[in-house]
């Protein structure tokens, strides 16, 4: 440890003000703070400092994603081998999955962090950990067969337009990971939906039933998976989204550490259930007939509501606002899913839409609060 610290200290003067490599200080600082906890102390004024800084928050979210990620890698192998009619062991599934999945992570981090570093150096601001979570989220919400260069283009778009154009981490209106997915979805539609993209290397065989459950339903066909399969995640889908169980473990971790908002999650579940119940009552086609509680198990609902909707930057900030925000995401997500068979991933759209409205929701909550307190003050003055 001492050795690493010393190495950093030796080279630090180069990057300080007036040093030779002053321009690259943001890059140096990023590595420094990645390895060591920064030893900043409060210098003036009275401020509360908390051990939970941005870095700690981001790392916690990454830990929460690990179960879903590991399961996702196993499921890549499982889907591949079972759809191609081959046998395989647990380890074989996992190895195959990681061979397929890790390059996606590498591309996502490589492109995304590359752009962040470039912007940090050009603009002279410090690089922070904001991208660490997005960079892992993006491969988790993409189909495994997406060509890597398409992933790279989507990541570049998300970081440039979704984030840096607004001023970097903490300033973005939309969730960058969802921007990447939406970009890929509209740009390269044949690679983002259909029955082949969810199973790795499926394009080499002709007959395959790799359709997602929502895709099957939209085509008015019967679902061949049991409810337990849906819950445990033995189904085709984007890498991280299939296993509700693993996502719930992550959710429990996020809620226990207080990083994610339970109001958004609960609001989302209520909204989605309500919309599902309404559609069940109407029951006009297969998608509407699909039991409301199973809607919560398939597609991206669980992953989106736990990891995407709870993004503290792009979501609502006020407590009441979080309820409304979460509720509407659930409601709209199921609505888009059922009404528009071409967009089975309703939650991507729903969250992006609500991201845009989150500041409006907050504004009215805050205004309402001010009005109420003014009224109370006036009443008190009158009675006094």
């Amino acid at each position: 440890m001492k050795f690493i610290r010393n190495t950093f200290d030796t080279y630090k003067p180069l990057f300080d003000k007036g040093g030779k490599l002053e321009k690259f200080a943001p890059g140096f600082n990023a590595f420094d703070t990645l390895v060591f906890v920064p030893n900043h102390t409060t210098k003036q004024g009275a401020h509360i400092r908390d051990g939970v800084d941005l870095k700690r928050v981001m790392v916690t979210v990454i830990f929460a994603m690990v179960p879903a990620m590991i399961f996702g890698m196993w499921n890549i192998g499982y889907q591949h081998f079972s759809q191609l009619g081959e046998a395989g062991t647990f380890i074989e599934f996992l190895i195959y999955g990681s061979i397929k999945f890790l390059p996606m992570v590498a591309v996502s981090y490589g492109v995304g962090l590359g752009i962040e570093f470039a912007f940090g150096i050009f603009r002279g601001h410090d690089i922070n950990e904001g991208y660490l979570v997005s960079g892992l989220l993006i491969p988790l919400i993409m189909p495994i067969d997406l060509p890597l260069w398409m992933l790279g283009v989507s990541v570049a778009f998300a970081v440039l337009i979704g984030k840096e154009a607004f001023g970097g981490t903490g300033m973005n209106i939309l969730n960058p990971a969802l921007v990447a997915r939406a970009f890929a979805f509209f740009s390269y539609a044949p690679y983002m939906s259909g029955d082949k993209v969810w199973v790795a290397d499926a394009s080499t065989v002709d007959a395959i039933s790799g359709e997602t459950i929502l895709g099957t339903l939209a085509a008015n066909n019967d679902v061949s998976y049991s409810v337990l399969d849906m819950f445990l995640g033995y189904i085709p889908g984007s890498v991280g989204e299939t296993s509700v169980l693993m996502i719930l473990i992550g959710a429990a971790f996020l809620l226990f550490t207080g990083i994610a908002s339970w109001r958004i999650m609960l609001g989302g579940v209520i909204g989605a259930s309500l919309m599902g119940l309404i559609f069940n009552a109407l029951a006009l086609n297969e998608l509407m007939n699909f039991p409301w509680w199973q809607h919560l198990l398939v597609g991206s609902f669980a992953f989106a509501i736990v990891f995407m909707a709870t993004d503290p930057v792009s979501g609502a900030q006020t407590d009441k606002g979080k309820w409304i925000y979460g509720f509407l995401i659930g409601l709209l997500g199921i609505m888009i899913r059922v009404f528009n068979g071409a967009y089975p991933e309703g939650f991507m759209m729903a969250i992006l839409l609500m991201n845009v409205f989150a500041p409006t929701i907050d504004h009215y909550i805050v205004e309402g609060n001010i009005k109420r307190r003014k009224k109370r003050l006036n009443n008190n003055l009158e009675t006094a």
Partner: protein
Amino acid sequence: MAEEKEALFSKQNRALLSDPLNDNNPISVQVLGICSALAITVQLKPALVMSIAVLFVIIASNVIVSLIRNLIPSRIRIIVQLLIVASLVILVDQVLKAYAYDVSKELSVFVGLIITNCIVMGRLEAFALANGPWKSFLDGVGNGAGYAFILVLIAFFRELLGSGKLMGFEILGHKAKTLAESTGLYAMGYENNGFMLLSPMALITVGIIIWVQRSKNRKLIEN
């Protein structure tokens, strides 16, 4: 009159031409005429034709209004201006229908909508009504060119990235049904970006142009 003595291309007059190209671009700085910039920029050819049409209408209406500016009662000036612009647009529409029927069909209603193009009315109100015909002509050329420049730029990127063509030529290679039959970039697995064909991406392209322009031209940054 004093302005008659001024040289044809005095510094002031040259600024009339060059300002709208960068510092005072009608699309990227004044953010006018966005609707047509989104609607007809999927391909380069219609964008070019549209640019020429708008250029013609701006120049002609600017000069005509400037010539009769002292005769127009200010109360009915909008009606007079509209009449002039509308006649010019009908003229353009008929010429397009006669000589470039395909493009005219592609542009469809947007040729007629030049009437409502804020840039045309804006220049008449802001410039032609108060300046002589030569200056108004230069102003029309400048603003028309500024509009055309951005339009063609957007259309260039949208057609190149969205359908892999420029002016209808497949410059990135031919995309066949299978990878083996494709040529050029497509043989390496390249795919067209379908998002580029949708209007939201045109708006984002305008945004990127504004971003690049502002980071190059510090004058434009307001606090």
